[in-house]
């Protein structure tokens, strides 16, 4: 067992341990912090796989964006120090059973499927390579999904503002008039 393998198993332990704590912790704020550690561990796994760009995106979007958003919404919606109610014991037992059975089934499936690894070619995932292919208009380019996803982000942004906007007094009066 060399250094690289030891680092992989350490990262795997970090990811799985903090993910388990994130789904079982009864304090919601601690749960969010454990989720943060799990996502940092996944970014570390991407660094270990030498896909630095995806690792950077993972840190910027998940750790810097989504977790901060989740923590803000925890502060906005409830007392962060309060304990949540413990789920019912039969529910815990059956959920754990379902998860364990699923893991065992998939483990068995992966174990018996022989992957023929081809590691002859070097794996080039530099940022310039990704950028060239992302914006290329040839048949293997990703310009169309890139544009579609930008429209999706715009729609999500407008939708969030509309959903979370407080109804103003004028619009309430307008609605009441409609009902009359």
């Amino acid at each position: 067992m060399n250094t690289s393998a030891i680092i992989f198993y350490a990262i795997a332990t970090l990811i799985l341990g903090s993910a388990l704590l994130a789904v079982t912790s009864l304090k919601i704020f601690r749960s969010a912090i454990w989720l943060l550690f799990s996502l940092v561990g996944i970014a570390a796994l991407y660094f270990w796989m030498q896909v630095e760009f995806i690792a950077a995106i993972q840190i910027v979007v998940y750790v810097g964006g989504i977790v901060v958003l989740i923590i803000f919404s925890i502060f906005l919606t409830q007392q962060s120090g309060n304990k949540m109610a413990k789920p019912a014991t039969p529910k815990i037992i059956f959920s754990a059973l379902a998860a364990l059975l699923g893991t065992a089934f998939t483990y068995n499936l992966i174990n018996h499927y022989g992957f023929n690894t081809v590691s002859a070619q070097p794996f080039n995932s530099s940022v310039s390579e990704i950028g060239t292919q992302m914006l290329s208009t040839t048949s293997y380019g990703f310009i169309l999904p890139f544009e579609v996803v930008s429209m999706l982000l715009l729609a999500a942004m407008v939708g969030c503002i509309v959903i979370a906007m407080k109804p103003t007094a004028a619009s309430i009066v307008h609605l009441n008039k409609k009902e009359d």
Partner: protein
Amino acid sequence: MNEIPLTHILFLSTALFFIGMYGLFTRRNLITMLMSIELMLNSVNINFVAFNKYLFPDKLDGLFFSLFIITIAAAEAAVAIAIIINLYRSHQSIDVDDATEMKF
């Protein structure tokens, strides 16, 4: 680097996916359910990157798929949190058991 076989990375992502599934089944709070969904999406991303690196090192399609999944996950989290805040405003609670108006 190549001492770790692909299957070990797949075992890791499988375990992560089913941890997320367990959280989705047991939690009743909307924000913690959203966290579980994030864990499941991340395990899928690990799979895409690992398959790309180990089986098709001459292409980059797996990386693009995980990039787009990350983008859509961010949009999904933002919309979900807007809905949660709106639900809290009308119900004073974000527990799924308290929002039963549309239950048949």
